[in-house]
């Protein structure tokens, strides 16, 4: 359903992605782990073109996009099929919880306001925050903000949701509610790519774990394969440090 | 949080008001000074059957008693003279007030037709402007505090002297300074009470038209005296830019000024404002 081929990306002289291939099937959950600065987030951001890859192909559904020839219109189409959940939530500060969710419905999908609000309320119920509909982000806890932000991603009705370290900037006691919500989505067969540091969570929720190092995918496999039979000493080292 | 339609409506409204404004602000009737008055005048004038030629006279409104504004009314010797000229020549007159230093620029760019600000005929100015018949004659003189012991030009050496910026006063003062090696500290002002600067002791002396100084001293009971060093004598007339449209009126205006000299109108105005006759050649 989503297929990346040979993605390259440099920032100036620094090569961040050195030819990444990745394929995700409908309903699959893949977690990306690896040391900091190895291009995990960049890879994710390339998938919905917040970063433009220097080279490589992205195929999603009927779209077949080549970095060399992509047009603005194609980028907008790509973004309608993908949604992003950010580490620091990035909720629209001047919009209430509900307004954050329905923004894309009204503006992009051109759904009339009343139906949009109904759909928005459904989503708020799904993330368990219907009582916060008129609250501005600044009045919400980090966990609540991240759940609204997942709701905003759901409203796009994307083929795939991209999570960029969704719990990294949360206080420990707030991590649980967000992970629970993601697990719930996984059960509903939502296709997801999750960059995370939470090994145990990755093990729980992901069908496959990808280990990234130095701009490449070093190993891809089930959680068991990665944890029990790592193919590289770098992976062993990384995992042992996490569990210690 | 911000209502867009309302915003657009407000901006739209302002643009409409502005455009109306553009149409109406030709020359503000400075005598009344009010924008609305000017608009009303404009309407009345259109109804007038006889087409009156317009003339716009520039002055400063802070040059007592030649041209000044008091209680919102522009008045003074120059204003009386020009209202009389307009009456006798069937001209529709309006006054524009500005800083003195701005008046020359306004004259050169055609925004005003002439200047009523005790302007004197000089060789330099004659290159650019045609002057009317002279209407007044004045000496320039130094004024100092009454308790000052200065008497002659030599006493002024190294002293600070104030004059009007860009006027004949400044030009002549610089010439005197050079000629007599006075080493003066010349300070130029525009719209500043030079006489008060002398009285307060911030200036040692002022240099301006004798009539103007005398009138100001008397009106405000200033503790000043004139030094009676009358090195400069100037002839006041109204300038018109050579080749300008209104220059054609100059002959008629000159004739009116000659008439007003003869029938005593100018002398009367002068006595009214200065308590002396500055309109006869000494």
């Amino acid at each position, binding site marked *: 359903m989503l297929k990346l081929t040979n993605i390259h990306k440099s920032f100036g002289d620094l090569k961040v992605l050195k030819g990444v291939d990745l394929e995700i099937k409908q309903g699959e959950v893949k977690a990306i782990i690896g040391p900091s600065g190895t291009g995990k987030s960049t890879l994710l951001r390339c998938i919905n073109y917040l970063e433009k890859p220097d080279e490589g192909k992205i195929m999603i559904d009927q779209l077949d996009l080549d970095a060399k020839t992509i047009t603005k219109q194609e980028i907008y189409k790509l973004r309608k099929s*993908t949604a992003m959940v950010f580490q620091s939530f*990035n909720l*629209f*500060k001047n919009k209430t919880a509900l307004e954050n969710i329905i923004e894309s419905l009204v*503006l992009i999908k051109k759904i009339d306001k009343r139906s949009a609000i109904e759909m928005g309320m459904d989503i708020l119920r799904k993330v368990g925050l219907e009582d916060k509909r008129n609250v501005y982000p600044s009045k919400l806890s980090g966990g609540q903000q991240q759940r609204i932000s997942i709701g905003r991603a759901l409203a796009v009705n994307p083929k795939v949701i991209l999570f960029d370290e969704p719990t990294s900037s949360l206080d420990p006691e707030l991590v649980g509610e967000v992970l629970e919500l993601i697990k719930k989505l996984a059960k509903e067969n939502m296709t997801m790519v999750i960059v995370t540091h939470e090994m145990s969570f990755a093990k729980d929720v992901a069908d496959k774990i990808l280990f990234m190092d130095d701009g490449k995918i070093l190993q891809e496999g089930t959680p068991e394969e990665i944890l029990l039979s790592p193919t590289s000493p770098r992976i062993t080292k990384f995992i042992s440090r996490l569990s210690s | 949080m911000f209502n867009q339609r309302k915003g657009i409506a407000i901006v739209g409204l302002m643009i409409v008001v502005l455009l109306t404004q553009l149409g109406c602000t030709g020359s503000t009737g400075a005598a009344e*000074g009010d924008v609305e008055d000017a608009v009303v005048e404009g309407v009345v004038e259109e109804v007038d059957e006889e087409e009156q030629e317009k003339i716009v006279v520039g002055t400063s409104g802070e040059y007592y008693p030649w041209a000044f504004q*008091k209680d919102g009314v522009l008045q003074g010797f120059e204003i009386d003279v020009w209202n009389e000229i307009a009456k006798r020549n069937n001209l529709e007159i309006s006054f524009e007030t500005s800083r003195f230093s701005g008046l020359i620029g306004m004259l050169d760019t055609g*925004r005003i037709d002439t200047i009523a600000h005790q302007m004197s005929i000089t060789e330099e100015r004659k290159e650019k402007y045609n002057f009317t018949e002279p209407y007044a004659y004045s000496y320039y003189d130094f004024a100092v505090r009454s308790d000052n012991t200065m008497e002659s030009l030599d006493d002024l050496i190294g002293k600070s002297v104030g004059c009007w910026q860009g006027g004949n006063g400044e030009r002549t003062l610089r010439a005197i300074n050079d000629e007599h090696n006075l080493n003066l500290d010349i300070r130029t002002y525009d719209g500043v009470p030079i006489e008060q600067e002398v009285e307060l002791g911030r200036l040692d002396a002022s240099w301006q038209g004798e009539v103007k100084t005398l009138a100001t001293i008397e009106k405000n009971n200033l503790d000043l005296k004139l030094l009676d060093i009358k090195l400069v004598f100037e002839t006041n007339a109204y300038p018109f830019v050579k080749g300008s449209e209104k220059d054609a009126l100059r002959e008629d205006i000159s004739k009116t000024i000659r008439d007003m000299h003869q029938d005593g109108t100018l002398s009367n105005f002068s006595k009214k404002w200065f308590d002396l006759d500055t309109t006869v050649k000494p």
Partner: protein
Amino acid sequence: MSFDIQFAIRLIPLMLQYLQVTVILSIFTMVIGLTIAFVIALITDAKIKILSPLLKVYVSFFRGTPLLAQLFLLYFGLAQVFPVLIKLSAFNAALIVLSLNSAAFMSEAIRGAIMSVEKGQMEACLSIGMTYWQSMRRIILPQAIRTAVPALSNSFINIVKSSSLAYTIGVTEMMAMAQMEAASSYRYLEAFVVIILVYWLIISVLGHMQNKLELRLNEY
């Protein structure tokens, strides 16, 4: 010389009569200047080719030269080269120069405010499929305006105060009135005490309005 209270009181209705010129000039300047400022800020922020370096020069010119010089350049200087400008009334010349000048300052305030909005806000907009301009209009500018209000209020206050410079090219407004009344009566103390109080009052009212506006914008 003592303070002539009666003279001062007599000046007040005269001041108010000319207050409208000051107010109209200031409000029009603010509306036009703010509109231009937004256009400049958006073009500069979007880094539109050719235009945005040109506008940088514009901003640098109007910020880097005295307002009075700009006023004289347009009203007297350029009028000698372009005769069509002679038809421009002093009021409109002042309006144009004040607007262009204040736009330069306000565009910087707006640009700074736009840049102060977290980068993540724009990314979030783009990630759900909004275009650059949609993001600006719906999310970035509303947040930026809140940051910009104090600076823009300062600009407006400056406009009110600098509108008195229009007198130098012959616009009779409040300051001109005070100057002329003072010169003709030699009562500088009274005239300037009154005018300073009137300006102070206007600016205080503006300050009060600014506080109210900020409270309203601070709901989120």
